[in-house]
């Protein structure tokens, strides 16, 4: 903050005037003899004062002028004292004359004071100018990982629809990760997900291969109907390369309620696509297989960059969808009644849907991340680029 020097006269000038001592009544007055109250004299003194004020070229000079022409000993102040001694009929006229002159002087002082302060401020502010282009990076920026923030954004689309966020362990019992999700023992479906087993083989514990065990946990721990979404770390025995990582993230939503159909599933996915990628994007469903949903499907969405134009003949190539016009979004389906049974839910009364997708993949196509390494190595340049929210 810039502190301006305070001129006490500027602040207190008028106030001091109130305390000017008055001269005593003059018993032997003679109006003719009181020359200081003569109209010509008042006009002259006033003109002198105004000229001096105008001529003051600095606040200091103006201070002197103020003392000389508006101070206690100034001609107008002295003249003012004489008024009290006048006979009543003369008082009014003389008072009007002197008062008018003093008012004019006071206003001129005020105006000149303001002008000179402006000039001074202009000068001082220029002198105080700094180079605002100097870099000021004393407080290094932090950032949240884009996988964290995009997963929050994804789950929040569902939270805004009234879903709650479910959480659970990463080291999971096989029963939750496989059996209850209708992966029979020795079924090739278990092979689809290359699993990290906790030693020994009989431990019955795995690193969860998907977030789907949360479906079981939600159904076992919550009252029906269930509307939950879950995002978290998942693990498969893939070596790290440009598109794979042994540790990655999934998000999935689960609904179990009365009368839920595939049409509800489509509606929810469409709402998610709008929330995440904007209005007006089409989605399409293809049959697929997951043990825990039946029927199962995979869902694609229209490319949010080219909106399908790149796949048309003669269309400009699109990097986001590799000119296919569609982006593979994730897997989905109707909760397999066998899953409901394993959770003690009556499949005659309740049905549901589940929808899941990869967080890394979503970050990759939404933001053009080319290489999985960037997301796992913790390079501050990568993370800082995304800031606090995305």
């Amino acid at each position, binding site marked *: 903050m810039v502190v301006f020097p305070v001129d006490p006269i500027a602040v207190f000038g008028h106030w001091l005037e109130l305390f000017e001592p008055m001269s005593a009544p003059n018993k032997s007055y003679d109006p003719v003899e009181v020359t200081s109250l003569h109209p010509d004299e008042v006009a002259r003194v006033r003109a002198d004062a105004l000229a001096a004020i105008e001529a003051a070229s600095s606040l200091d000079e103006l201070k002197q002028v103020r003392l000389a022409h508006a101070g206690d000993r100034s001609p107008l102040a002295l003249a003012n004292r004489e008024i009290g001694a006048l006979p009543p009929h003369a008082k009014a006229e003389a008072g009007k004359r002197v008062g008018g002159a003093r008012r004019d002087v006071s206003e001129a002082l005020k105006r000149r004071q303001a002008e000179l302060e402006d000039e001074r401020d202009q000068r001082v502010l220029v002198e105080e100018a700094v180079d605002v282009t100097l870099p000021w990076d004393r407080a290094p920026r932090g950032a949240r990982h884009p996988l964290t923030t995009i997963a929050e954004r994804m789950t929040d689309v569902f939270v805004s629809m*009234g879903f709650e*966020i479910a959480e659970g362990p990463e080291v999971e019992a096989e029963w939750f990760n496989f059996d209850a999700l209708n992966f029979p023992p020795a079924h090739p479906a278990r092979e689809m997900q290359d699993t990290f087993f906790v030693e020994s083989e009989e431990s019955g514990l795995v690193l969860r291969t998907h977030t789907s065990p949360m479906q079981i946990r939600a159904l076992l721990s919550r009252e029906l109907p269930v509307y939950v979404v879950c995002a978290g770390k998942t693990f498969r025995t893939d070596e790290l390369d440009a598109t794979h990582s042994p540790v990655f993230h999934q998000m999935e939503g689960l609904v179990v309620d009365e009368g839920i*159909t595939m049409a509800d599933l489509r509606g929810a996915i469409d709402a998610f696509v709008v929330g995440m990628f904007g209005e007006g994007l089409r989605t399409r469903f293809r049959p697929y*297989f997951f043990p825990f949903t039946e029927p199962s499907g995979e869902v694609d969405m229209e490319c949010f960059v080219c909106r399908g134009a790149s796949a048309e003949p003669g269309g400009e190539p699109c990097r986001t969808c590799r000119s296919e016009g569609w982006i593979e979004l994730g897997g989905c389906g109707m909760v397999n009644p*066998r899953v409901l049974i394993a959770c003690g839910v009556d499949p005659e009364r309740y*049905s549901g849907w589940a929808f899941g997708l990869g967080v890394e993949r979503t970050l990759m196509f939404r933001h053009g991340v080319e290489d999985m390494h960037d997301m796992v190595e913790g390079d501050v340049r990568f993370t800082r680029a995304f800031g606090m929210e995305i």
Partner: protein
Amino acid sequence: MRVPISWLREYAELPAEATPREIARRLIAAGLEVETIDELGADLTGPLVVGRVLAVEELTEFKKPIRYCQVDIGNPEPQNIVCGATNFAEGDLVVVVLPGGVLPGGFEISARKTYGKVSEGMICSERELGMGEGHEGILVLPESSGVPGQDAIELLRLRDDVLDLAITPDRGYTASVRGVAREAATAFGVPFHDPAADVPPAETAESYPASIADPAACSRYVLREVRDLDPAAPSPIWMVRRLQKCGVRSISLAVDITNYLMLELGQPLHAWDRGKLSGPIVVRRAERGERMETLDHVVRDLDPEDVLITDESGPVNIAGVMGGLTTEIDEKSTDIVIEAAHFSPEAIGRTARRHKLHSDSSYRFERGIDHELQRQAAATAVRLLAELGGARIVLGETNLRAPVEAVTITIRADHPDRVAGMSYGRDTVVRRLRDVGCGVSGEDVLTVTPPSWRPDLRDPNDLAEEVIRLEGYENIPAHAPRSVAGRGLTPGQRLRRRVGRALAAAGHVEVLDYPFVSEGDWDSLQLPADDDRRHALRLANPLTGEEPLLRTTLLPGLFRALGRNVGRGFGDVALYEIGLVYRPKRTSSGEAVPPPPRLSVDRGPTAEELAAVEAALPDQPVRVGVVLAGDREPAGWWGTGRPANWADAIEAARVVADEAGVELQVKADRHAPWHPGRCAALLVGDVLVGHAGELHPRVIKAYDLPARTCAMELDLTRVESQAVDVVPAPDITTYPVATQDVALIVPETVPAADVEAALREGVARHGAGELLESIRLFDLYTGEQAGEGNKSLAYTMRFRAADRTLTVEETTGARDAAVAEASERVGAVLRGG
């Protein structure tokens, strides 16, 4: 599974104008995952003709053997062609590309002079024709497979489109041309001709003797035989070409026929040299200690669960997975036994995984094959051996059958409607189920018998999916989501988000590390031998043997992330991670907890069962870790930088505590991996929540970190449990503040926190606790005036009352009481007093 469209069209009457792309699109819409379309020969241009080599002149003046050949291509004059290969002879049939032709890859052929001769074209190898990587050298066609001048593009079916399908585990039947053709025919609404439609008449006589010892392992076992096969009979070109297009190498006629029928029908077949079998065949489980050498020349120790085909000599095959070396067909085999069986999918799957031996055969068996196909497949095999190899079919057939559980499914006719959320109507449902091959009867309630090739159809929803997919997933409407009353995020979920934001706002960058660590990490962290953090879960199949353990602390991962950043030129870094650690539980006697019970899936678990599962899981608290190195504030034109120090690590913990609304107590502690003199234990109330400070120099060395690296690790789950949910509002009073400064000299070893606590206690005892608004250390001095071994701590105490202006006597009294207490407790002496 690779499916040539030319083969597909043989069984599905697809419209001639249907492009491969359109066929793929419709199959995808029906749920078959077509990954790619290979357009074989798309860039191949003739003339490409069959030629007969009339004469070969060896040119010997070059570094390698060069042949100058005269080739009959059906013209009056032979074609003169220079060739660098030598694997053919005069009289052989070859393929010749003539000038003007273009081979795959864009190789244009013209008449040109080479090795001193003009070559009018080129004699082609398999690779040059885009047929496969089969073998080096010139492609020599079987005698009588063509005549000179014949178009070789047509003869070798060099132009074809091949669909590459990824088979989902529920659709084993599409691992065959038969299965894909059925789907294609349904997708186009055209007739399908089943290659397995002709069921051979029952044979009266038994063929090779066999028996099933374990009916659970094998429900169908069919054997047929041929004699007097011409072992030199070549596989016909059309068969070789189809195998090649499916990615299968031609080996010999007998083996090619078994592979061909497996691709066409989906039924794996095995062929033995009958002369190498000894005695009757028995299908049984392995005995303990049994071993056999499989066709891939690996001697395998068999497991009692493995299903074997055995004869009197012992195991001859690992059933459905791979044959044994001892009974392999060779170039002299004339008498052949063909096996077509149905083995238990679970048994084959287990065996394939156990031996890490995945074959085309085991792939199909473990997905479930048609259990009524064995007789047709075996009969077709012997017929082809007879037709193509001159063999004599032995009358009779061994046909063993164990009962297969009959599946019928009852569904309401509107069940698919209720699953999809749209109306199909009963007639559509029945028609679609029949398209799939189901037997259907009933009106409002349907009784459905799935076909023998669809073991995946078991439940009403399986049938609903069939109807819905054939009617088109794309036709399902979208219903706007129902509005539900959710409660939003839990306090813990909100806290974790806030903690992340606050740490980032304070300049920390989030990393997400792998949770894999090694025993070496425990040593690098200087953990004592009995430190509980050494008690970690171990992976049975880690990615690298070097990091088989699951983390019990976030720090090693943070150190590695820091190291990577330093290595890339970012030495001034503050990183944080929020994640789980895994702490195995132990019983009260210190032993490992028992594994979780395998619960049933045909009912919901009881509370006790669930508790037993949970008890077996490790504790998995949420931790937050921070690591700081280099300058916390960089040097710049404003002056010097400020290196990160132990206090920044504690401050990071305080940022977390502030978000939780709890007050962090700091105590000196000695705890690995921190510097013993610069380590703080962090408490909330009486609960230890973590540690912070500067790292032990040995830890810094072990992880190759910058000197004076600092770190913090906090158990967020514990902090959460202490968090304040509803903050009570403070009373704000506008009476003036009265301040009192005191400088106290104490021994250097006295913690500042103790001095402050004593001052507070003194004020409280004086009855002025409510008046003390704050107490703040504003100066720390060590030096001559404090005296040897002492330090001077200067505090500002601010007093304020809610209802009056305090008098000097009141605040002085409170101050004196505070100093007296400090004197009493920590030997403080008022400086200058």
